């Protein structure tokens, strides 16, 4: 791992399983979270298994941060790749207690992880009280959490997660996601993350890979991929736009902070931000309403002056998807055709876009 | 050490004890078993010095193969008897075996056990072979045959005289089968090649032909022609 950051992750593989053919050629960033997205059976798990070496294809080429894991000549066996793999089913060792499961990988791999770090993971995942239990006496979500903790405890150089949070409740998810973000930021390890949840992907991912029937139909930064209009896959029902903004001012009284996007201002909830920091913002199309006047007399705080670029039909015939542009940033709004008519909105027109809510990512 | 036919068990154990009274420094180990098995093993170099066979044929064959250090020596002639756990066998002859009440008649396997071969000959000579053949049960060796009869599973059987003289069978009488009905059960011993220089082996063989030893043999129903 001598060339950290020098190069990212390369996965070139071509693998057949009966009727299914995985054929991908990916260049992924060497740090940050890469979300792998696609319908059930499209090859997400197969891709992770190829990458990890659990499934060996004869003609694969895999490098991670300059280190060759597989090419025509060599094949680093799985146990030497030092990766953390949270698989779709928890796969806990049934003959070991939870504690022993957690220590299994730690003993073999972790060079640095201190015991405190493990304790922190255990606490984060709320499994302190389960340590002495056998896996078969755990609930589905508890098993999943132990499995995540087990992978994190190994202090891996790459983390692969196959729908790790699908069995967990919202509150628990919202505790784990920020931890993963933090880990990824602090340790700068790359994370490959399979998920069906738009929320998770939007919140975690920097990079997005979309698979379909074993081939990659899109790979790029999340902002780029999500605004690709002709992509059949969207993160869930909701189209959205994503852009970066700089923190300009903190209002500690109202617990808000002001962001600058190009020439315009936005107010969002403050989360202990520092002035000058660059943050990523996601705005769902359904959270944007349009009007011809700036409406100061409303609880909506954010008003962007933007130009309508195109108007597209939406999935429901009552609605349209309006593509706007402000300061070269894209913005999507979902409004009814009736409103378009009543407000006389057409391409080229300048309108006020009111943003009720936005999410801060990363 | 010695390998010996199973029917010698009681007799030879006593002989060894008696011999050792006179020669306390010498140790003699005896392994009992089927003579045929011992023959096969001796051919493959089994580490026995003396071979007490229940048959004279085996020592002879070993001699022909050049594995022995002496000629086979006849040490005893065995006898067969009728014995039953259910009734007084001493009143019976081989002819009575055709009676239906003897649903099973135990003899040793005539194919490979010497006592079985002699039993077959005797039955044939007595002219009852045809009528008993279907009621025979065969023991692997003479001991097993004795167990068939002793446990009552076979109402009667043809056993070795040496066995029925032992304590386990002494409670019931037996009928000696006339020796002219079958070939003699000539039991021979031989000194194996590996004991050529073994003084103890030779001393023990010599002891067996002393007067004291002969009485012990006779006590267990083994006699030599002319005794």
């Amino acid at each position, binding site marked *: 791992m001598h060339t950290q950051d020098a190069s990212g992750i390369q996965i070139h593989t071509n693998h057949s399983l009966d009727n299914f053919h995985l054929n991908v050629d990916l260049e992924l960033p060497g740090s940050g979270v890469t979300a792998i997205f696609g319908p059930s059976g499209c090859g997400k798990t197969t891709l992770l298994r190829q990458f990890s070496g659990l499934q060996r294809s004869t003609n694969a080429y895999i490098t991670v941060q300059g280190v060759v894991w597989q090419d025509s000549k060599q094949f680093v066996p799985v146990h030497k790749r030092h990766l953390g793999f949270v*698989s779709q089913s928890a796969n806990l060792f049934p003959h070991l207690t939870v504690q022993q499961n957690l220590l299994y990988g730690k003993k*073999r791999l972790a060079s640095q992880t201190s015991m405190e770090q493990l304790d922190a993971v255990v606490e984060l995942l709320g499994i302190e009280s389960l340590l002495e239990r056998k896996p078969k006496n755990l609930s589905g979500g508890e098993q999943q959490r132990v499995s995540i903790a087990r992978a994190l405890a190994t202090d891996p150089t790459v983390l692969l997660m196959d729908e790790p949070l699908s069995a967990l409740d919202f509150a628990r998810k919202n505790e784990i996601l920020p931890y993963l973000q933090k880990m990824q930021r602090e340790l700068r390890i790359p994370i490959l993350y399979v998920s069906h949840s738009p929320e998770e992907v939007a919140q975690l991912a920097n990079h997005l890979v979309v698979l379909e029937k074993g081939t990659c139909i899109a790979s790029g930064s999340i902002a780029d991929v999500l605004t690709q209009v002709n992509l059949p896959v969207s993160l869930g029902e909701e189209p959205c736009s994503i852009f970066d903004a700089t923190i300009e001012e903190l209002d500690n009284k109202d617990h808000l902070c002001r962001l600058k996007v190009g020439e315009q201002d936005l107010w969002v909830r403050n989360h202990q931000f520092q002035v000058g920091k660059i943050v990523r913002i996601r705005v769902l199309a359904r959270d944007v309403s349009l009007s011809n006047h700036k409406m100061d007399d409303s609880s909506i705080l954010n008003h962007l002056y933007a130009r309508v670029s195109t108007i597209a039909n939406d999935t429901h015939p009552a609605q349209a998807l309006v593509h706007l542009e402000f300061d070269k940033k894209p913005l999507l709004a979902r409004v009814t055709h009736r409103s378009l008519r009543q407000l006389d909105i057409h391409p080229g027109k300048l309108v006020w876009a009111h943003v009720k809510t936005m999410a801060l990512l990363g | *050490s010695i390998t010996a036919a199973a029917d010698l068990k009681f007799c030879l154990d006593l002989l060894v004890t008696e011999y050792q009274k006179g020669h306390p420094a010498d140790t003699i180990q005896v392994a009992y078993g089927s003579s045929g098995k011992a023959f096969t093993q001796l051919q493959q170099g089994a580490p026995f010095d003396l071979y007490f066979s229940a048959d004279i044929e085996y020592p002879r064959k070993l001699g022909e193969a050049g594995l022995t250090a002496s000629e086979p020596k006849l040490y005893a002639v065995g006898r067969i008897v009728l014995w039953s756990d259910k009734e007084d066998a001493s009143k019976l002859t081989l002819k009575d075996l055709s009676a239906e009440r003897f649903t099973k008649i135990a003899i040793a396997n005539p194919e490979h056990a010497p006592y079985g071969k002699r039993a077959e000959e005797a039955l044939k000579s007595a002219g009852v072979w045809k009528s008993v053949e279907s009621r025979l049960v065969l023991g692997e060796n003479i*001991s097993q045959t004795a167990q068939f009869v002793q446990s009552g599973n076979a109402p009667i059987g043809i056993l070795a005289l040496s066995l029925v003289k032992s304590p386990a069978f002494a409670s019931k009488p037996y009928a000696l089968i006339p020796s002219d009905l079958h070939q003699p059960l000539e039991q021979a011993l031989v000194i194996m090649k590996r004991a050529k220089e073994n003084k103890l082996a030779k001393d023990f063989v010599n002891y067996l032909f002393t007067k004291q030893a002969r009485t012990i043999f006779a006590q267990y129903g083994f006699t030599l022609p002319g005794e």
Partner: protein
Amino acid sequence: MLHADDWAAIFLTAKLSILATLILFSLGTPLAWWLAHTHSRFKNLIAAIVGVPLVLPPSVIGFYLLMAMGPKGPVGIVTEFLGLGTLPFTFPGLVVASVIYSLPFMVQPLQAGFESSNHSMLDAAATLGASPLDRFFTVALPMALPSFVVAGVMTFTHTVGEFGVVLMIGGNIPGISRVVSVQIYDHVEAFQYARAHHLSLFLLLFSFCVLFLMQRIRNRGIA
């Protein structure tokens, strides 16, 4: 109650059985693993060869082994050439014969255990940094524990109870090949029923303990 020579036979039996079981664990485990996982076309052949000692009567196996290991047999010629002498009527010879005879008792249950084992656990262990050998010992083996216990106990008890082969190969020599089973057999043949009963009783109590212990291990493994 038990005579000195009975005790000698008991110790000899214990030595033989433990040794044979240990050897069979180390030989049988990789063999069973291979049989459970290979796609080689020799698989069925090897599996059938391993099963052969099950189908032949012990004393017949003993007879063929005696022939093969005797001075004129192929194995005997090799061992004599190597300066080891011939194996029959020696303790090592007995061990070799027991190992051959009990091989299927070790391999068959292990193979069944490995065949029904779950590969995803092994995958998980690999991603956690366990080398193939490591994951075998720390995952595959404990997960196939019931099969291991069965294999071990069957091999061990069967070696204790085996006697046709021992009688043929061992020659009933005290301290070398007069194991308990042979001793009991001798007692029975000599109508020394009391001694036979005592030794049998001892074996029974002993096997009870072993089997009890085995059940405990199993129950623990499952719980």
